């Protein structure tokens, strides 16, 4: 088996797909694997487990400035948190109407949750975005109405890096009396998010995106908003997410949130410099185009498309050169469809096929920029060398 890395000079630029867990987080939470106690039990081990979960809840709440830690509901993943948010709030609040809406660049777990609601009579509308991925506020107002229950808008997009003006969008949605759900999986810990100041009703968080363990996510639920649980059982997490707590992952997510909050400002500035270096170098290649917003973008995110070549080939060739990148190309997906995000920003199918996404993390440094840029140039030149299509 080829282990990630393949060597000490391997450069990992696919943090949006999966992040390494911070060694400090592992150290902090490892004891919970060795001597766990079910938080539902009243013995000492159980009380220690309960304490670990509640401490983690406070740290996660602190990251997003939630007033009451009890508004944070732990889940097993971002996908699950998005399902709970969308299906939970819609089925519990049908008295408000039977319409739901989402931006066209939401995570597939949001879009598929809304499509599922159509089967029980909900009307689902998609809000278009512009060519940089920004939600069009006027289009939003045209799509939603008073009987829309919830509108979902992603804070920072994982595929094109665009950051939405979430406070303005929340106000526009609230002016119509509608709940707003914000998927902050890619943005939390990288750019500030404040559920009170930004006035957010439901907010999804990812543990792994914070350098925490996989297998944990969270949903912030503004006090007073009622949800229907989607997983039933013993009533953990205020009945909203039954199932015995994953102590290691939750404690890890808490500690990762604490570290992320503490280091966000310095780390984001550091990543931005690497990001901007990569964008400058790579955009000098003929037929290279930036995808997403040029300035309103996540600090760790650089995404491109190249004319005349295909994304999976780019990924394989970059891997041969010791660099892990991602692509939204159809050939690399399970469904063989190009990324819906790339189509939503107006790319044609043949343009969407040539995408490459680089997402940075703690292991990256500015010194890697020249080697990465050279590898991209070499890859593009090589693949174009035997492509029948032109560079545009």
């Amino acid at each position, binding site marked *: 088996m080829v282990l990630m890395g393949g060597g000490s000079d391997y450069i990992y630029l696919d943090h949006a797909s999966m992040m390494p867990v911070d060694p400090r987080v592992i150290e902090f939470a490892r004891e919970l694997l060795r001597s766990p106690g079910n938080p539902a039990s009243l013995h000492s081990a159980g009380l220690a487990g309960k304490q670990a979960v509640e401490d983690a809840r406070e740290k996660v709440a602190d990251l997003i400035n939630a007033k009451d830690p009890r508004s944070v509901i732990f889940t097993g993943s971002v996908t699950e948190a998005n399902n709970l948010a969308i299906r939970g709030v819609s089925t519990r609040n049908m008295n408000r109407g039977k319409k739901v809406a989402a931006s066209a660049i939401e995570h597939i777990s949001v879009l598929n949750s809304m499509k599922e609601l159509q089967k029980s009579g909900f009307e689902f509308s998609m809000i278009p975005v512009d060519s940089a991925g920004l939600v069009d506020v006027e289009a939003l107002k045209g799509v939603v109405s008073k009987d829309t229950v919830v509108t979902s808008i992603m804070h920072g997009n994982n595929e094109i890096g665009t950051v939405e003006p979430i406070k303005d969008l929340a106000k526009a949605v609230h002016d119509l009396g509608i709940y707003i759900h914000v998927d902050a999986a890619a943005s939390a810990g990288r750019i500030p998010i404040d559920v009170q100041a930004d006035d957010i009703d439901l907010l999804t968080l990812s543990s792994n995106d914070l350098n925490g363990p996989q297998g944990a996510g969270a949903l912030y639920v503004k006090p007073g908003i009622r949800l229907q649980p989607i997983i039933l059982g013993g009533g953990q997490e205020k009945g909203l997410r039954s199932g015995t707590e994953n102590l290691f992952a939750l404690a890890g997510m808490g500690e990762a949130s604490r570290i992320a909050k503490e280091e966000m400002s310095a780390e984001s500035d550091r990543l931005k410099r690497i990001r901007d270096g990569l964008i400058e170098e790579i955009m000098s290649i003929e037929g290279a185009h930036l995808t997403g917003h040029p300035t309103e973008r996540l600090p760790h995110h650089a995404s491109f498309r190249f004319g005349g070549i295909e994304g999976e080939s780019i990924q*394989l060739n970059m891997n041969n050169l010791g660099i892990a990148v991602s692509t939204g190309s159809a050939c690399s997906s399970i469904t063989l469809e190009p990324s819906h995000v790339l189509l939503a920003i107006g790319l044609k199918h043949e343009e969407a096929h040539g995408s490459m996404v680089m997402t940075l993390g703690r292991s990256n440094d500015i010194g890697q920029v020249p080697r990465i840029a050279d590898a991209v140039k070499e890859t593009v030149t090589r693949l174009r060398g035997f492509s029948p299509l032109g560079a545009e």
Partner: protein
Amino acid sequence: MAEVGYSKKVLEHFTNPRNVGTIENPDGYGKVGNPVCGDLMEIFIKVKDDKIEDIKFRTFGCGSAIATSSMVTELAKGKALDEAIKITRSDVADELDGLPPKKMHCSNLAADALHEAIKDYRRKRGEKADDDPQKSGD
């Protein structure tokens, strides 16, 4: 351990593809696929004494599209046209030690491009270009 992703042979052909390029004034030319679908392949052949004397390809597409193009040129080179036209998509996949199931249809068009090139050659010579019996060799 279960095989995941591409075989070593696919990756080897992706990394070092054989017979890359074009042939000026080819005796036969075949083109299949569509950039909208993410795969486009061209095959150029030079024919002598009813044998494929030289063969080149250009491909836009994923790893398996490039590897199958390379493999089909290797299989066809030096073969008599009657033999070369019998090369099927599954022959190409088998020679590469298999392709991931989802790639079998969309990115395994190289044999079709070869057949098109041979038919083009025969058409140009006024021969009857039979409809290829093995087109759905997958």
